[in-house]
């Protein structure tokens, strides 16, 4: 049995399909993450800048948003803040994915309303765990 299937069985049950938004300005990163999540049965949309991330969140209404912080047009922290403050975004699970995991960086994202902060490169295990607990919390 592959490790991937083990991840889905966290908590003793299969994770139900979730809507996930992945925002990152690096094309390879965003595509590979989307592929990984699709392989696990989830529906994925992508955004490559902060403005697109907010728009996509409003249209697609994902359960989970993985937000890269260093993006053009509007940075990830601001985009996350806007999503959190919107009526349609107040219950979304928004997780920052950043190259920097310093205390200040984590405080910033916490202050903007993020549910969590992963340091790049985020492990498959961490990503799937977040999705699993978001889907269980529904």
């Amino acid at each position, binding site marked *: 049995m*592959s*490790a*991937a*299937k083990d991840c889905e069985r966290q908590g003793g049950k299969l994770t139900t399909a979730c809507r996930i938004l992945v925002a990152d300005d*690096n094309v*390879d*990163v965003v*595509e*590979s*993450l989307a*592929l*990984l999540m*699709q*392989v*696990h049965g989830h529906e994925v949309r992508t955004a490559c800048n902060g403005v697109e991330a907010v728009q996509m969140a409003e249209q697609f209404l994902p359960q989970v948003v993985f937000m890269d912080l260093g993006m053009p047009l509007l940075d990830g922290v601001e985009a996350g803040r806007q999503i959190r403050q919107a009526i349609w975004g107040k219950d979304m699970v928004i997780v920052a994915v950043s*190259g920097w995991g*310093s*205390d200040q960086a984590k405080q910033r994202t916490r202050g903007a309303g993020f549910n969590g902060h992963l340091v*790049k*490169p*985020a492990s*498959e295990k961490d990503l799937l765990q977040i999705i699993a607990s978001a889907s269980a919390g529904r």
Partner: protein
Amino acid sequence: MEDILVEWEAFARSFPGMSQRDQAELRDHAEEILRAIALDMSTTQTPAEANKKATGKKENFATSSAAGLHGMHRHASGFDINELVSEYRAVRASVTRLWTRDMLIADKEALDELVRFNEAIDEAIHDSVVIYADTVEKSRQLFLGVLGHDVRTPLGAAKVSAQGLIGANTLSVGQLRAAEIIVRSTGRVERMLTDVLDFALVGLRKGLPVNPIAMDLLVVVQDVAQEIRVLYPDHTVKILFNGDQKGEWDTARMHQLVSNLVENAARHGRAGRPITVSSVGQDTEIVLSVHNEGEPISAELLPRIFEPLVRNAEHAKPESLGLGLYIAQEIVKAHNGSIAVESKTKGGTTFTVCLPRKIANDRGES
């Protein structure tokens, strides 16, 4: 003053790549340094002060800031350390020559002045060189940090793509193996990059930053044992523990510490023989030890084993950057603990870490 500056400039101009703007700056620096030296020489000093200066212990702010700036500037202009020091040699030579050129009698006063001049030049060289070396070190570490950080992005994409391929469950056995190799290899590179980044961090910030929270060390040990079993299937990992394993440490750093020690044991331990991780909870501290059987660390290498970039040259495994034990030591230091190693043919190699359960900070709060 003008004659000296002319000679100094002539020397500097012999260097390719020195722009017009640089020449103007050179003049400013040179003049400032020389004026500071002149000022210093015109004030009387006691024999005690003179001695302090000669042995490099006196602080002379005027000269040090101008000379320090000069060192930084020279680094930016692409001078190497040799050229920087040669500049001062040129100044010393031209000043002394111009000075003594018109002297008919060398009296005591003139000799004292010459001595003070030379002392001032030596101080200036010292300041320039210190700042120059510091600047070189800092740019090197910044570069390492940026490199480590930027390389991780495409590396992460490669790893995640391979994990996606595996998860799709459509690969043949051979293709699956290939994808697993990609995941393992990118994982190894990721670990090397982490080491490089941490190495840069230690230098830039004079130590690793840590975030202690309440945690259970046993959980970390078990996680690491699992990971090592997957990476090194030829080795078994035994865990022995005694006493309460809870304390306040940085979770990620503890994972890194145990991981570095156990992986080191796996890399150098005799295949087929167990690696033993034992953790004993004592009153105020935890004593963690990692043991492997096999060839002992050589007597030459043993005292230097925690130094960065020191590798066991006989082991032809280039996966290690030689930073693992250095970083392990830095993590232990950041938690106010200690680490030691024993390595003998009969007893094998044991790394022992003493970790206080809580880091008490300087103000006595803990």
